[in-house]
């Protein structure tokens, strides 16, 4: 129980610590594609096309937050089947 509490605090601190970096320094923690592939492609005159889904502004935040909530609920619902093994029909009847 104490371990879980410490983990929750650690995750909260990590989340809080990450926010100013994301807001103030957009290049930091960029993907390796931006750091490595993009300069090579740009040098050769290649530009990535726009993606099919609109990824501008806060829309990805909204979409992934929504997906995370839905996925979290689904994982919680299926936790037993995934990690703890499925109870037999007899056990379920009891």
């Amino acid at each position: 129980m104490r371990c879980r509490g410490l983990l929750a605090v650690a995750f909260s601190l990590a989340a809080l610590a990450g926010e100013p970096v994301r807001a103030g320094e957009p290049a930091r923690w960029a993907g390796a594609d931006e750091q490595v592939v993009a300069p090579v492609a740009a040098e050769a005159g290649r530009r990535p096309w726009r993606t099919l889904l609109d990824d501008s502004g806060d829309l990805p935040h909204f979409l992934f937050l929504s997906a995370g909530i839905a996925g979290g609920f689904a994982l919680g619902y299926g936790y037993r089947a995934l990690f703890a093994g499925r109870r037999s029909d007899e056990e379920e009847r009891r």
Partner: protein
Amino acid sequence: MPTACGHPGAEIARRPRSHLRSPFLAAALALALPFPARAMHLADGVLPLGWAAFFGALALPFVAFALGSLRRRAEADVGLKPLVAMVAAAVFLLSAMPIPVPVVGTCSHPCGTGLAAILVGPWMAVVVALVALLLQALFLGHGGFTTLGADLLSMGVAGAFAGWLAFRALRAAGASLGAAAFAGGLLSDWATYAVTAAELAASIHGARPAGQVFAWVALGFAPTQVPLGILEGLLTAGAVTFVARRRPDLLGRLGLDVEVAA
């Protein structure tokens, strides 16, 4: 010849409700994704169309053989398709998960195809990578459709076969399951990025020699992928030894020796 009751596929087949839950849980895993990282995934537009078509043509025979192999193996083993689907969900998740590398200050992702190749074989890992890359291109803008062949060659073919060969070679040499799986995951990751660097060097080297561009891209990937490759090795070793303890029959499908201490 395994009996109908003793066959691992038959055991899974006796649990239809579990089958029904598999796609649901796979979707749940996929939906729990954080923001995607692209890294080795080449976006549409990065490669000239001629080169993209060339890489697609190179990948096509692998896809055709892998799909044929899936069909043949699924006829003999009813539990194969749900297993491949679950592995595909795991690869989809792993290969879109951005992991920050603190010293470098960038993010990149593992590939998961080494793990997939160990669990379901390298040809099934090609199918798994194809499904993961297709869904990522469609829903995450992660990779692209014109570059699907190039991405499949690096992650699905090179990654899967490098990981599988390393794993099998080390097992044949008497290495422990965990050590062999670690090497499989590590080399699978590095092979993926090496082939991505080769694809970029071949197709968009411009006026510079292709070898120079390859070295530049490979060295650019190295600070992020060296630690991430080690992480992927650890992850693969952990996953394979976990599966070997809980479900040794899954590894037994490939005829692997899975003597693991309980």
